[in-house]
């Protein structure tokens, strides 16, 4: 719906592309191309939609050029490459499709800037699997929620929209029990509307696995001899275990990108195994908060088009999956790639790694780089300058992004299609 007032237009029901929640109830005012969030925003949305329209021309090694010159140069560089890397991949479904096509064509490796988190989840899914739920189901049914290693502050409206949502269909949000387990978590948002405080178990992030495992052992009827586990009293865990068994619909929430230590996938697996054990007698499910910048979309699209989730290499003419070797960091460190195409179209404060190889950077206008890539092309923002699709963090729901204003910048999709024709 749009209403016009002088030179400003108000657009309702705007999906926000700037984190993986993709809240779709924003009200945005467009005043001659400058956007302000009027309702239902958050700090991140306000900043991201409010990014001023800046002038940014394509450059070749820092020198201004035309868009056609930049496209031709990019195509030339890619044509000459024997081992290209497509990294960043901060784009929507529409942008990711030509990425896959081009990667297949010229034998590239693809990796997303937030793939570390995604891969922790992939490993668990591939090994013992999991039982997961959606934002709607948590909102409507959950009576017990554990936040493991995250306080969801990077996902500002999660608690407001999903936990303390008075429109819950089948449960009273006020009755929800909230538990935080982890290090340096801000737990104030876990206080109920009527002031009920959450349970907080402070431990290091690496110790979450121990606590989850002991909870699992207690619930499975085992006798624990230790008085303290990761600094937490056994009696506290025994009480918690009992509450979990009595829950009607429990959820354990984690943010895969925030469990940032070696083999964090084992922690996620412990969470998922505990969830599965509880489903023997009651309803319990896992829920993951994934990174933004389109990582869920990139991961899913890679899986359906190539057969493998991130990180995929096409150099042999068919897709090969290797999460260790094919990371951006390792490929650059081991000098296994000779060219980098970096894509980041949601925000101007994301920097590609500096790679001493020919680099093509497609990024949001206003991006300040600390090096001069061979080709820089400013690109349009999905959900702002052009419509598109993004898959939400719970992976079940995808949303259609809106075009809010006209832009002189090309979308990643149009740009890559042009480059594809020339390669």
């Amino acid at each position, binding site marked *: 719906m749009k209403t016009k007032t002088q030179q400003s237009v108000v657009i309702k029901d705007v999906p926000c592309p700037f984190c993986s929640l993709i809240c779709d109830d924003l009200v945005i005012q467009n005043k001659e191309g400058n956007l302000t969030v009027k309702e239902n925003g958050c700090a991140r949305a306000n900043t991201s939609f409010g990014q001023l329209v800046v002038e940014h021309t394509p450059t070749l090694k820092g020198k201004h050029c035309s868009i056609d010159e930049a496209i031709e140069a990019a195509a030339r560089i890619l044509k000459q490459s024997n081992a290209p890397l497509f990294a960043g991949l901060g784009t929507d*479904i529409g942008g990711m*499709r030509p990425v896959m*096509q081009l990667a*297949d*064509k010229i034998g590239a490796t693809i990796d997303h800037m937030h793939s570390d988190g995604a891969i922790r989840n*992939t490993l668990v*899914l*591939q090994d013992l*699997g999991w039982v997961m739920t*959606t934002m*709607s189901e948590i909102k409507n049914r959950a009576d017990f929620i554990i936040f493991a290693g995250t306080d969801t502050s990077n996902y500002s409206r999660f608690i407001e929209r999903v936990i303390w949502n008075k429109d819950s269909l089948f449960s009273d949000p006020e009755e929800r029990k909230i538990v935080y387990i982890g290090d340096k978590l801000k737990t104030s948002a876990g206080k109920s509307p009527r002031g009920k405080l959450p349970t907080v178990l402070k431990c290091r992030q690496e110790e979450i696995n121990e606590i989850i495992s002991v909870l699992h052992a207690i619930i499975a009827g085992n006798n624990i001899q230790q008085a303290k586990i990761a600094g937490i009293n056994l009696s506290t865990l025994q009480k918690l275990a009992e509450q979990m068994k009595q829950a009607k619909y429990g959820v354990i929430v984690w943010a895969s990108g925030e469990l940032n230590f070696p083999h964090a996938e084992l922690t996620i697996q412990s969470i998922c195994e505990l969830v599965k054990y509880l489903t023997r007698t009651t309803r319990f499910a896992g829920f993951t908060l994934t990174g933004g910048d389109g990582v869920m979309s990139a991961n*899913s*699209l890679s*899986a*359906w*088009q*190539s*057969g*493998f*989730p991130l990180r995929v290499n*096409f150099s*042999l*003419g*068919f*897709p*090969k*999956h290797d999460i260790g070797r094919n990371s951006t960091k390792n490929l650059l460190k081991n000098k296994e790639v000779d060219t980098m195409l970096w894509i980041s179209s949601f925000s101007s404060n994301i920097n590609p790694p500096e790679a001493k190889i020919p680099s093509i950077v497609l990024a949001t206008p206003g991006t300040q780089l600390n090096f001069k890539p061979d080709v820089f092309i400013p690109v349009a923002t999905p959900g702002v300058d052009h419509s598109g*699709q993004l*898959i939400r963090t719970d*992976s*079940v*729901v*995808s*949303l*259609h992004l809106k075009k809010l204003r006209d832009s002189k910048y090309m979308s990643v999709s149009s740009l890559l299609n042009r480059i594809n024709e020339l390669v």
Partner: protein
Amino acid sequence: MLIKLSGGTVYDPVHGINGEQRDIYIQDGSITRKPAASVKIDKTYNLNGKIIMAGAIDIHTHIGGGKVNIARMMLPEDHRADPVSKTKLTRSGCGHAAPSTLTAGYRYAEMGYTSCFEPAMLPANARQAHMEMADTPMVDKGAYAMLGSDDFFLRMLAAKQDREAISDYVSWTINATQQLLLKLSIQVELMHLNSINVN
């Protein structure tokens, strides 16, 4: 546009044609009778030595949607064991039990299928299922709205809501998710197929 397919060997069981060399005429996308000699044929394809059959239809094949993609992600060994190299005309892919979408489309076309239907499109996941089907080349695609375990639908049944209300919900779902028809589990089908009339 009038097209002639000449000299192909036709198999058409429905009309009792069992391997006869025949010409086929297509007018604006539909098969038609042999036109009068005076009518100009716009394009002729020589199909001598080739077989002509009606394209097969797979009415129940899991080709798209979140659950198929979960399957793909859970089968790295299956996918590693079945790589499909790109060719001049086709893209690469892999997989046997749950192949990548492009591989699935190509394989169906190789087998002579022209239409494939995803039988279990979760309404909430419709958009992704459509995206995966859009990335399945060669064949026409459609899907069925899986409502057999839909909470709202089951509540309506349990509350013995009137047929109109249930039909409205089902119709709305099918329309909103751009699917072809309703899909129910066997038990629900047997119990209610006679009592639900869906337009």
